[in-house]
């Protein structure tokens, strides 16, 4: 790092290097070396330190652009649920679209969990668990007196639950993939430190 540079430039570069920490070493070293080379050259050209650093903004915010892009590329490249979910969760607090996608994913996850729970309960207690219709309306789950209500699905509950689980999983994956693609379209068309 620029040992001969102004202390504030050294401090900026130190914080920048630290903030790039989640990017693997050869790649983060390249980014750091390029920014360092840029600063060295502009300072040698007569630009004052504050103006040179001001062109990059806060080191953490600047590093986040590289880190965000790395996560985005990784999620788009692998299309693994864990990486796509991590990306949507990370963007949820600063993007309305990602927050809406997070809500849709929560609905899919809730549907999946309810269907799974119902399927398991039906297998454990086929007499008392079902989708019941009684004088009080519709009820999903376990009742004490099966004779007081009509089981609408009977043993079909388990296969129906499996279908719901598949739909929730597929729907969640479509939401995830489309969300990540939309985030990429938005962020890649919007450089963040324009004048």
């Amino acid at each position, binding site marked *: 790092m620029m040992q001969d540079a102004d202390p504030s430039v050294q401090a900026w570069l130190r914080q920048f290097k630290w903030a790039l920490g989640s990017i693997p070493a050869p790649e983060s070293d*390249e*980014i750091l*070396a*390029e*920014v360092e*080379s*840029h600063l*060295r*050259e*502009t300072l*040698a050209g007569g630009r004052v330190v504050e103006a*040179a650093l001001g*062109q*990059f*903004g806060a080191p953490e915010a*600047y590093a986040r*652009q*590289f880190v965000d*892009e790395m996560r985005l*590329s990784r999620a788009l490249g692998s299309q693994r649920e864990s990486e796509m979910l991590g990306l949507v969760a990370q963007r949820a607090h600063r993007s309305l679209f990602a927050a809406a996608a997070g809500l849709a994913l929560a609905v899919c996850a809730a549907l999946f969990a309810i269907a799974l729970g119902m399927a398991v309960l039906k297998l454990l207690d086929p007499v008392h668990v079902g989708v019941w219709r009684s004088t009080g309306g519709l009820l999903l789950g376990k009742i004490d007196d099966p004779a007081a209500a009509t089981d609408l699905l009977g043993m079909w509950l388990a296969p129906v639950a499996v279908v719901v689980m598949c739909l929730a999983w597929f729907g969640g994956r479509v939401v995830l993939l489309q969300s990540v693609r939309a985030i990429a379209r938005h962020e*890649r*068309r*919007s*450089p*963040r*430190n*324009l*004048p």
Partner: protein
Amino acid sequence: MGDKPFENSQILKGLCELALLSLLQGRAHYGIEILQRLRADAGIDIADGTIYPLLHRLAKADFVRSEWVIDEAGGRPRKYYELTPVGRAELALQVEQWQRLSGALNRFLSRTGK
């Protein structure tokens, strides 16, 4: 008036990539040189820091490739970027899209009271 740099960030968004790809089709450039050319020739006045995340992303997308070169005059290491064949295809696509959009918009803006 015509040479005044664009100051509207909304208009600049998305144009940086197109201008950058177009710039690199001629020969390899390094960061500061790219900024100077974009400002002087394309009227795109962006902050210095904007260029490196963009170059980094274009390199990941295989649109550009880079190489460190020691500048003979000053002995400084500089990272030069040049367009790849994939980048040339992307540039052709973006130019075609931009020309179609700007042509339609120009016709719309120059309509006479219709």
